[in-house]
């Protein structure tokens, strides 16, 4: 009886998951296009919007990546007390609701922000960040944490033995750069750049609030306008299709330029001190960590300070919405993890395509998805019944690519080691997963689940289209407070939202790390 390597799982669930993602992103687009009374047409303002969208997304992604390089490097090679807590906290902006993040940014860099106050105190003019610079600043604030996390994960994948080898070969800074840093960057950066680029292409509130005017019109705003004021579904569908094309081009570019993942299996030996590191580098690292920490954390701190006195007196409906949002986030997380595991377990030849498909979730406008689903599902159920399930599902799909990114390498590594063992032991697929894979996947799963929960918590997304009075989520409730002059209550709700997002993330992430060495 010849033995073939046992597949890690049936392809069925993975293909079904991919199908669900494709269906939930592309079908709504088709539905919107079919509902249109006339074929869409893109005018010169739309072309300008596409151009601006691409330019700001490229600059935002580029700056995020470039800044992430020294930050991740410094965090990777320094061991200090509270490092893990700092890494977790520095991830916070990425999971902040965008509107909260924008007000955090303004509290620091706005005309009335503390940075402006400091400049004014020494007689310099106040900052004016509105315009492209403000858009990029906010996008970097929101996405630098993601870039740092991706790069840091890359650094941590470097087997300790290879660092020992470098030490034994007497590598200096130049050789460390050449043999560790550059290959790592080529492996991680293209995907990181593409992910942030895509996130920024669907940016709506940031570009609109900080953009300073109609010059900063994004595709997402054009879609909003097409839906809301013109009711031009054909144009909305065309713009949505443009987003899909941008995503496809970015995905293919990543596959072409990125180095394949380095699967060097380490033995988890204690890493030596970083080879080729001098005093100057040590000082620089500390400065980089301090600056990045200040940039990412002070706006959050100011949002917290603004809300802390209001949080006790929040209306009961806000607390009810908070509970609803937590439950929604948990359900959404469970779905996201199930989808991610199914897709990650696909055979290699299917894996790459499914990974790109997963990115559609962040590239396609939530407005298009929401409206399309509304058109598709309205005949079968009332929007009230659909609001929370649809929101949870869409949130899960948005989180999917981020979970997959961490899960893929870990699963490959587990396959290469424990997978063989499980095969040798003749374990069933279920046992193989439970005993061999899942323990090795705890860390990326915990991180991914935390991300999914927090993103779902903070997302306003499609709920706005489906919502009725009784089932608002916390972000929606916060918007309603803002819409009724209750900015102070809204500040309290923003803090609550931020705290809950961070808490959910922290709980899952800590679960994933529970077996880590200190």
């Amino acid at each position, binding site marked *: 009886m010849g033995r073939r390597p046992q597949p890690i799982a049936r392809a069925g669930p993975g293909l079904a998951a991919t199908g669900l993602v494709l269906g939930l992103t592309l079908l709504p687009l088709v539905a919107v296009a079919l509902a249109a009374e006339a074929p869409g047409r893109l005018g010169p303002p739309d072309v300008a919007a596409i151009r601006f969208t691409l330019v700001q997304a490229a600059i935002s992604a580029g700056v995020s990546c470039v800044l992430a390089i020294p930050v991740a490097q410094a965090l990777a090679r320094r061991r200090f007390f509270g490092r893990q807590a700092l890494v977790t906290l520095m991830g916070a902006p990425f999971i902040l609701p965008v509107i909260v993040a924008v007000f955090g940014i303004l509290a620091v860099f706005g005309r009335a922000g503390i940075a402006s106050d400091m400049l004014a105190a020494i007689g310099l003019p106040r900052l004016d960040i509105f315009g492209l610079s403000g858009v990029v600043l906010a996008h970097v604030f929101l996405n630098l944490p993601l870039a740092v996390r991706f790069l840091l994960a890359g650094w941590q994948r470097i087997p300790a*033995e290879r660092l*020992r080898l470098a030490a034994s070969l007497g590598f200096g800074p130049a050789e460390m750069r050449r043999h560790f840093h550059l290959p790592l960057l080529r492996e991680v950066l293209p995907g990181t750049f593409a992910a942030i680029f895509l996130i920024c292409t669907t940016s709506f509130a940031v570009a609109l609030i900080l953009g300073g005017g109609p010059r900063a019109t994004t595709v997402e705003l054009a879609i909003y306008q097409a839906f809301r004021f013109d009711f031009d579904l054909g144009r909305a569908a065309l713009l949505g299709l443009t987003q899909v094309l941008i995503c496809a081009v970015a995905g293919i570019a990543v596959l072409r330029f990125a180095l394949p993942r380095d699967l*060097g299996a380490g033995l988890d030996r204690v890493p030596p001190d970083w080879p080729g590191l001098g005093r100057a580098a040590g000082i620089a690292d500390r400065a980089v960590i301090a600056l990045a920490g200040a940039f990412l954390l002070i706006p959050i701190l100011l949002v917290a300070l603004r809300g802390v006195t209001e949080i006790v007196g929040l209306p009961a409906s806000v607390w009810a919405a908070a509970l609803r949002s937590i439950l929604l986030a948990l359900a959404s997380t469970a779905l996201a993890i199930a989808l991610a595991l199914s897709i990650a377990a696909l055979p290699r030849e299917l894996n790459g395509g499914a990974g790109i498909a997963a990115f559609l979730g962040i590239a396609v406008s939530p407005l298009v998805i929401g409206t399309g689903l509304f058109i598709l599902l309205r005949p079968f159920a009332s929007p009230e019944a659909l609001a929370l399930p649809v929101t949870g599902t869409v949130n899960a799909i948005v989180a999917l690519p981020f979970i997959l990114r961490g899960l893929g390498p870990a699963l490959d590594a587990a396959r290469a080691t424990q997978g063989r063992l499980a095969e040798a032991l003749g374990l069933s697929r279920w046992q193989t997963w439970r005993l061999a894979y899942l323990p090795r996947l705890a860390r990326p799963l915990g991180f991914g689940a935390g991300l999914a929960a927090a993103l779902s918590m903070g997302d306003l997304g499609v709920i706005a289209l489906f919502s009725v009075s009784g089932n608002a989520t916390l972000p929606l409730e916060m918007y309603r407070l803002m819409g009724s002059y209750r900015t102070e209550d809204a500040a309290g709700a923003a803090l609550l939202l931020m705290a809950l997002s961070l808490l959910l993330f922290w709980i899952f992430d800590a679960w994933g790390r529970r077996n880590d060495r200190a």
Partner: protein
Amino acid sequence: MIALEGLEVTRGRFRLALSLDVAKGARLALVGKSGAGKSTLLDAVAGFLKPQAGRILIDGRDVTGLPVAQRGISILFQDGNLFPHLDVTGNVALGLPASRRRSGSAEVADALKSVGLDGYGDRRPGDLSGGQQARVALARILLQGNPVALMDEPFASLDPTLRAGMAGLIADLAGRTGLTIVMVTHDLRGLDDLVTDIALLEDGQLAVSGRAADLRADPPEALKPWL
């Protein structure tokens, strides 16, 4: 060639304490149960761990406080010996001083020939078998030209036929260059030509040490299971 004088290393609760001499050109096999201190000893000699007490001398020179790269030691790791983004030539050339890496292609080719990998220069590590990867690393160690080599389970991932070939290759190269070798292994079988000395560690102590020929002829009780 290697002298460990009153060496003490602690790692958590584990404590290694021993003195040991390895003669020039000797090829010492460190055996012992898991947790007996083999890897700790190797790490200490290499310089990845700082000893709490004692001295490490290599060729009469005190290297106790020196960084890894300045100890005159080459290391064959159990895994992760090669950089995946460099081809075989690039990996082997890392054994040369930085100034000669570009011009040293003839030396690299010679080293590859001597480990039986003539013509493999432009392959990537990912395209090589485990045994071939180990031989590439060996070629690099040859170019490094250090008097001492540390090897961590050099045969662990090799099947018996490859194991014999690799052992023969190391013995041959060491014989020609006079390399002094300390290797961790859990199995001495088939290594008769390679191993000249044996040391058995138990709970961080040196339980048995001596010439391989003597110990094989009249093995102490503790060593018998390892032979």
